[in-house]
């Protein structure tokens, strides 16, 4: 009995000392996971996830402080990718953070714009050009569709317009060939 305790205690002390020494000796900083998560996020910078941008959200996910289903612009596909990367189960998009919408760009109604520059300050990617008391306009290719410019606008002159399909952006559809499936409900 005494020997048993002695042996186990000896083992615990030796291994504990080795591990403790290694933990100090081989300490490393930095987390490459955040970069990987950030690469999956759509970079809309809309803040719908509850964090002030995609990078902070990525950091929160990496630390385990946020769920992976809080990003509406990323949609189900983004959640699937995050689940794959982190080895977690897929969860459908959390309703409180918003819904997945077709990709849109903001459009300023240039007649009503009063040139207040509030939207310019709100835009996370500097996609709005204009100066004080001058009409503003949105550089459509740069707009991420985050909608952050909508609330500050005092005259509600910004609207979101879905991006339509053109001959250039048109995609070939998934080939579906109808073959009559076995009719189970029939008869």
């Amino acid at each position, binding site marked *: 009995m005494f*020997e*048993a305790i002695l042996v*186990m205690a000896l*083992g615990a002390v030796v*291994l504990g000392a*080795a591990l403790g020494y*290694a933990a100090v*000796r*081989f300490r*490393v900083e930095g987390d490459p996971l955040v970069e990987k998560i950030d690469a999956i996020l759509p970079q809309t910078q809309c803040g719908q996830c509850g964090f002030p941008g995609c990078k902070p959200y990525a950091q929160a996910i990496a630390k385990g402080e946020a769920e992976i289903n809080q990003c509406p612009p990323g949609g189900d596909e983004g959640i699937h990718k995050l689940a794959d990367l982190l080895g977690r189960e897929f969860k459908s998009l959390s309703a409180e953070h918003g819904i997945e919408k077709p990709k849109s760009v903001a459009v300023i109604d240039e007649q009503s714009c009063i040139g207040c520059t509030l939207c310019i300050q709100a835009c996370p990617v500097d996609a709005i050009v204009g100066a004080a008391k001058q009409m503003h306009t949105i550089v459509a290719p740069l707009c991420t569709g985050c909608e952050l410019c909508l609330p500050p606008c005092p005259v509600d002159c910004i609207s979101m317009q879905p991006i339509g399909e053109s001959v250039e952006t048109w995609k070939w559809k998934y080939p579906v060939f109808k073959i009559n499936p076995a009719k189970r409900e029939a008869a």
Partner: protein
Amino acid sequence: MTSYLFIILGAVLVNNVVFVRILGLCPFMGVSKKLETAIGMGAATTFVLTMACGASFIIDRWLLMPNQLEYLRTLSFIVTIAAIVQLTELVIQKTSPLLHQVLGIYLPLITTNCAVLGIPLLNVSLRHNFLESLLFGFGSAVGFTLALILFAGIRERLEAADVPIHFRGTAIAMITAGLMSLAFMGFAGLDKYK
């Protein structure tokens, strides 16, 4: 010399740790979705298992047996393995961040791998000497890696198969593992050839 070869071959094929001894199924099912991770896991397991076999032999022969403490075998082996895994992880993290990035999340998983405990215990019951223990551990780990890689190859293809919805995921993976096990039964008797 031939007997050493037979130990390795026997551990890799005839008594494959996954398909015949049915050990280590947890990482076998968990880390075999992609070929890359399967290779990483296999490499990490090979290293840890070989080390664990050596360390457990030393503990068993020079610490437990002289003191008639064989009943502490399971306990002390688990502690040793856990420590080796932790130590390995810390060292790799420092010395080779690249390797750590590949193996990183799989290393801690090895602690809970029953194969890593089972093989040292089998070493004891098969009365292997130190070199045999190491070879047996290495061979078993290679067998584990082989199983993992082959399974990952099939699973990557299965991912795109039109599997009936109720059988998708783990269900079909279990069936596949069963059929692979069936195939490995073909090796039965090879190690008993005179």
